[in-house]
């Protein structure tokens, strides 16, 4: 038995896990109630994609209404608000957050840092099942009396829990808040795993400054999520109390339908502060993993070391930190002291500095690179362009005087769809095309991939570029139908119809992608262990797809950073991280 008396005498080695690896014995514990991070990652990804498809269909319905108002009788104003709300919430929380952190985080972190699994596989398993429960509760609201909540994805009180809002006095808002609370509990279990795994379970030689930027992005985003989600959790608790017990945290005295309500003295602004204290970091919780992944895609497919690795790491960390002090730029029109507006505009614009550093470094990585225009690379390039576009309109909206007239117009919708909708989704696609060979052992079909890329990329621009213009004309967002107005020219309606057609086409193009995923599973070209000649550890596993425990008998030892591409004098144009210096010349 152990004779050690202290907590841990000396420093334990990477080969000795603090928590034993669990060896499943039945099919059920291997694939369903799995404690293997890779399976959990796939479960997360499939669930997130499924619910994401629901949100995609909702966006179609919204576009049908906006493009052809008065044509579709089955879309009522109440339903339109419900579609908007659910589309937004699903996309931001249940798709993007879950896919980047739960999906890619689970699959990639242990493999990329040379661990056998996450540190707490059991909690990790629970994390997925609670996430699934959260999704089911969310879906249940579609079938509840009164339907899902139509409060808008920001759920602003007091309207969110009043009878005028769909689901406000029915089940909708209750199920939404319950689902969010479940999501946060589940995420916390997973998030603690990701953070501790990165900090405490790396392989020999894997220093923090030798981690691939993917891991840096996911790690920083997870830390942020662990600190930002509490604000959403607390606001969900309080709104639930307001709705169910009749407390007045967020509810001022107000009159509804001529009736004075039993609320008094609450602060609707408090909710906005709490929500955006979560909501703004949330943007970067989605963006930072995308930054990280795209750095690796660009470096690998341009056969160039990433330019300014340390700068990239620090930019990620600084963006993460700054994103906690900018939240009120979402509230310029909410009624704040103008000096606050000044402060938050300043911090918001300061974020542009580390972000611009990242963009320049991506471009300098591409500079004179041996660029392979593979499908992952195409998506990575599309990300840079889209992100810069979305970022530039962010500079407009970050300034108080420009934001005030643009607030609540379609310009805002176009901006955030570019910057945190389309751009991260492109990275997700790129990442799936990139890592699918490792997950399944087969390549995705290239021709279908290119078709998917071009339709999605051009289509996304055709959707969201005109939308900026419509917004500048003054078309407000969240309106079921604007009808005849003095200030909006009739041409806006034509443009709206055009956008809707494009949205339908781009949405339909995703069927090609889904088909490709299913088709390539059996018929794709066998990929081999390292089809992209990449350096990072996940491509160096003894078997593909990696088995339970990832590394067979011996854990990898890391000798170099993850970006040794086209090293002068080396035999190949890449040197894997686990190749000792003596082998580099082989």
């Amino acid at each position: 038995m152990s004779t050690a008396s202290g907590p841990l005498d000396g420093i334990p080695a990477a080969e000795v896990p603090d928590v034993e690896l669990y060896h499943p014995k039945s099919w059920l514990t291997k694939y369903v109630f799995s404690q293997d991070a890779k399976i959990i990652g796939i479960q997360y990804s499939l669930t997130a994609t499924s619910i994401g498809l629901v949100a995609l269909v909702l966006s179609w319905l919204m576009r049908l209404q906006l493009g052809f108002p008065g044509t579709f009788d089955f879309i009522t104003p109440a339903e339109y608000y419900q579609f908007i709300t659910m589309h937004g919430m699903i996309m931001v929380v249940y798709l993007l957050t879950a896919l980047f952190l739960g999906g890619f985080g689970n699959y990639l972190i242990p493999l990329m840092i040379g661990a056998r699994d996450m540190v707490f596989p059991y909690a990790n398993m629970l994390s997925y099942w609670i996430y699934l429960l959260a999704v089911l509760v969310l879906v249940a609201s579609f079938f509840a009396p009164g339907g899902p909540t139509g409060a808008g994805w920001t759920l602003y009180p007091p309207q969110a829990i009043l009878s005028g809002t769909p689901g406000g006095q029915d089940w909708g808002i209750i199920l939404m808040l319950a689902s969010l609370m479940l999501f946060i509990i589940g995420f916390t279990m997973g998030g603690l795993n990701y953070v501790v795994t990165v900090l405490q379970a790396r392989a020999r030689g894997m220093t923090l400054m030798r981690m691939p930027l993917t891991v840096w992005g996911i790690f920083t985003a997870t830390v942020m999520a662990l600190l930002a989600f509490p604000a959403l959790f607390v606001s969900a608790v309080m709104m639930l109390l307001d709705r169910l017990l009749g407390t007045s945290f967020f509810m001022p005295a107000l009159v509804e339908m001529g009736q004075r309500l039993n609320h008094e003295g609450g602060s609707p602004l408090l909710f906005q502060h709490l929500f955006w204290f979560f909501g703004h970091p949330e943007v970067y919780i989605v963006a930072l993993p995308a930054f990280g992944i795209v750095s690796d895609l660009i470096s690998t497919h341009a056969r160039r070391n990433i330019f300014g690795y340390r700068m990239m790491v620090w930019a990620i960390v600084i963006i993460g930190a700054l994103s906690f002090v900018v939240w009120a730029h979402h509230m310029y029109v909410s009624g704040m002291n103008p000096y606050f507006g000044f402060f938050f505009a300043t911090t918001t614009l300061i974020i542009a500095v580390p972000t611009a550093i990242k963009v320049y470094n991506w471009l300098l990585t591409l500079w004179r690179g041996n660029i392979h225009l593979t499908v992952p690379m195409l998506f990575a390039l599309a990300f840079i362009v889209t992100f810069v576009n979305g970022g530039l309109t962010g500079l407009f909206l970050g300034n108080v005087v420009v934001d005030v007239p643009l607030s609540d117009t379609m310009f805002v919708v176009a901006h955030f769809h570019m910057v945190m909708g389309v751009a991260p989704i492109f990275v997700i696609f790129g990442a799936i095309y990139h890592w699918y060979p490792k997950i399944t052992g087969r390549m995705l079909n290239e021709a279908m991939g290119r078709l998917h890329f071009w339709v999605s990329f051009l289509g996304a621009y055709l959707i969201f570029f005109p939308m900026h213009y419509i917004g500048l004309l003054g078309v407000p967002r969240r309106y079921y139908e604007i009808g005849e107005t003095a200030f909006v020219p009739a041409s806006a309606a034509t443009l709206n119809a055009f956008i809707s057609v494009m949205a339908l086409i781009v949405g339909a193009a995703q069927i090609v992608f889904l088909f490709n995923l299913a088709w390539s599973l059996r018929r794709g070209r066998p990929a081999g262990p390292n089809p992209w000649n990449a350096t990072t550890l996940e491509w160096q596993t003894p078997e593909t797809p990696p088995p339970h425990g990832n590394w067979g008998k011996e854990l990898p030892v890391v000798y170099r950073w993850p970006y040794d591409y086209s090293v002068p004098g080396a035999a190949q144009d890449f040197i894997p991280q686990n190749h000792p210096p003596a082998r580099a010349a082989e």
Partner: protein
Amino acid sequence: MEGIAQAQAPATMEPAGGMQGFVADWSSDQRAFKNVSWGKAMMWIFLLSDTFIFGCFLLSYMTVRMSTTVPWPNPSEVFALEIAGQHLPLILIAIMTFVLITSSGTMAMAVNCGYRRDRARTAALLLVTALFGAAFVGMQAFEWTKLIHEGVRPWGNPWGAEQFGSAFFMITGFHGTHVTIGVIFLLIVARKVWRGDYDTGRPGFFTSRKGRYEIVEITGLYWHFVDLVWVFIFALFYLW
């Protein structure tokens, strides 16, 4: 796992202290916190996240206390008891605080005994800690009952701003839930220590993994945190 700690311990390196040591640890491989196990690191990071939850609760309480237009009831009066004809403001809260802080003391002693592999004493001290915790929750239940009898509800009370009741029930309720969960964990760990699970390597019911005596310390971290949070609630809700 046994003996490896000694076998792998670096023989020559004397860990650098202060800032240099910090930088050395963070730029090293394998672990950023060198002597910290996975479980302990996880608990610390969880507590950081939980700090944000309680921070948001308390900030929200302070905000509604300022935003409400109706006067705030005087906590010293609301939480006063008549004992033997004496009017004693905040007496119950003072006793509760004393009990909870005492339980932190017994918890610390349990951790000490745990590392000395003193099975009986560890289990006993954990049990005492759990009893103190349960007593705290019991007194809280008494306080809730008394206030409810006096007409305090989450949506209103006889003395002033209705946010008083809302914030009171929400914050003490959330903290009480934390204490209750802590008591349950303490009892589970006490049972396992008593049965000798950490000596015999008996696998856990849910996780089918062996536990270690370190779990006593990890539970202790959580317990001390719950105590510390109470100090803030005490200061900001009852004394303000």
